[in-house]
């Protein structure tokens, strides 16, 4: 039974202060250089007004664009290897949209499944996710098509849903979330039945306002059987082969490991990589993904077939960042819609 409370706006501000006073680093969506980014905030007043979603996803906090894995130095006595300095402080991500939070259970399959990625896990354990339900999804949002909701709580420790200007409905989702309830008992008020109903209403309205919809039924099966379909050439013709959509996408997680240094010392790092790059699958004697069409196919296949084969879920939360970021207007929902049309045409026969 998820604990429910009401949090006033003033108390929300206090909550952030309290968390910081405990030595946690609090990050929230801030407006900077024309972008909305999760940056450290000292008070709630720094939060971006008219916040829809952040330009970059919270993936940055769990799989940063680059991170040191070890440092090495050559001494007279021998080679010395140092692990990277661990992050001491815990982190709070405040104002995470449900689509972003939902990415965490998806990516846990890879980073916390058969193999445990210690760097990822240590961050996961030290990060509190305070979700914020959406009231006005954007025209690029399509979370509902993937089974998520603008008021969904997957991946959240707490979920706040605005009830008007100065109150939030709070749900304590996880154990970590419940601990927050216990640590600051003075901040919460009781939630009434009408509060509960209003909270459901906010979610329902937001859901209804999402225009962009894809019927995902049968998509995976179509992908199973159409590896060589001419569709891949058609839809990828305009693709420039950059990594904008991959890097802003929360569920994309390919990385490379590089050594930066020389004979005397250096750093081994994990860095983002993208299957859109021409050299991603370059091998000495063979390049299986010679064309952009094959590389684009990989994107769709990984998210909507291979991930399902492996883990039973799509690797997409419908946040729509790919649509916004693409310089040449590639639209993932259009592509899924084209596949859908083909399925429907085949069914009619």
């Amino acid at each position: 039974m998820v604990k429910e409370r009401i949090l006033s706006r003033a108390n929300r501000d206090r909550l952030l202060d309290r968390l910081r006073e405990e030595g946690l680093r609090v990050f929230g969506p801030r407006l900077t250089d024309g972008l909305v980014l999760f940056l450290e905030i000292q008070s709630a007043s720094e939060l971006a007004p008219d916040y829809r979603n952040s330009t970059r996803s919270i993936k940055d906090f769990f799989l940063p664009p680059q991170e040191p894995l070890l440092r090495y130095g050559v001494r007279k006595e021998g080679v010395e290897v140092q692990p990277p300095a661990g992050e001491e402080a815990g982190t709070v991500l405040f104002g995470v949209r449900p689509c972003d939070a939902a990415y965490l259970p998806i990516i846990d399959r890879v980073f916390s499944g058969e193999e445990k990625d210690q760097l990822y896990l240590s961050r996961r354990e030290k990060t509190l996710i305070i979700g914020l339900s959406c009231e006005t999804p954007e025209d690029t949002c399509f979370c509902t098509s993937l089974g998520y909701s603008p008021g969904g709580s997957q991946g959240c420790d707490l979920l706040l849903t605005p009830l008007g200007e100065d109150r939030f409905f709070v749900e304590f989702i996880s154990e970590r979330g419940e601990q927050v309830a216990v640590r600051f008992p003075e901040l919460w008020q009781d939630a009434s039945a009408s509060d509960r109903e209003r909270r459901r209403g906010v979610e329902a309205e937001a859901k209804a306002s999402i225009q962009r919809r894809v019927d995902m039924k049968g998509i995976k099966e179509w992908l199973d059987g159409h590896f060589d379909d001419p569709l891949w050439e058609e839809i990828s013709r305009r693709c420039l082969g950059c990594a904008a959509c991959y890097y802003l996408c929360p569920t994309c997680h390919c990385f490379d490991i590089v050594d930066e240094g020389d004979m005397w010392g250096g750093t081994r790092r994990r860095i983002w990589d993208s299957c859109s790059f021409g050299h991603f699958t370059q091998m000495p004697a063979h390049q299986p993904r010679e064309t952009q069409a094959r590389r684009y196919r990989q994107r769709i296949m990984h998210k909507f077939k291979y991930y399902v084969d492996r883990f039973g879920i799509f690797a997409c939360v419908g946040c729509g960042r790919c649509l916004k970021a693409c310089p040449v207007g590639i639209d993932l929902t259009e592509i899924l819609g084209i596949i859908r049309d083909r399925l429907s045409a085949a069914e009619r026969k």
Partner: protein
Amino acid sequence: MSQELQEKAKELLEKGEVEQIIGYGPGTRPGTARPVFLTLPEESPCLIWTPACVHNLVVYLTRKETRGRGKVAITAKGCDVRALFVLIQEKQLRREDVYVIGLSCQGVLSKEALAGGRWELSEETMADKCKICQVRTPLEYDFLVGEKVEPRPAGVDPYAARIEELESRSSEERWEFWRRELSRCIKCYACRQACPLCYCRRCITEKSVPQWIDKSAHLRGNLAWNLIRAFHLAGRCVGCGECERACPVNIPLMLLNQKMSREVAAQFGYVAGMDYTVEPALASFDPQDRQDFIH
């Protein structure tokens, strides 16, 4: 104008004068445009020409998917044709390989206007590059859509003011400015991939033995990448602005590129993409070039 364009495209494909046409079609988000690739005459009604047609389609001319598919026609604004000129100058294409459907242009929308859903072209919504445009009628074309337009009369140069302001700061302040801007870079290479002049089959960043440019998105790697790209474009960049438009984290790339193109103009009297019969500035020299900075 769209109709004139569509009819011409249909005619070119029907007569077999070209095998493929690269143009603009409507995007899936209302008001937007995006590149389209036609091979059949009946596809021509999808072609549009609006202030949302910001992309530089010349980027597709050096792609393997375009080459070897027969002659190509391309709808091109003045800035796009300048990029084409540089490709011809650098022996990447021959003029006769491309049928240029020139687009008379009063300006296109800025990145902010497009993001904000403002589709009307005005001084306020116009891209910065258009405010200094001297090629509102493309310098060359095989067919012109629309009437010829005069170059923009001299007015406010949005880059000059910002460059001057930066140059008036101390070098420490400038370093801090670029540290801040470049720290956002995520090495997605959208700038490179959107640029018609970044056509190297293997980019310097892809050379790994040795790794000249760190692939990591830390400040050292970001600085190396952006600095070298700016230098590789010096004297070649035509100011189409695609790099800055494509950048998902709003790095002011045009500031760097405009600074360099102005330097080359000032030092060598050369502007890229205006005449493809001359030698590019940094591929040639004058025995009388300045050397006051050399001891």
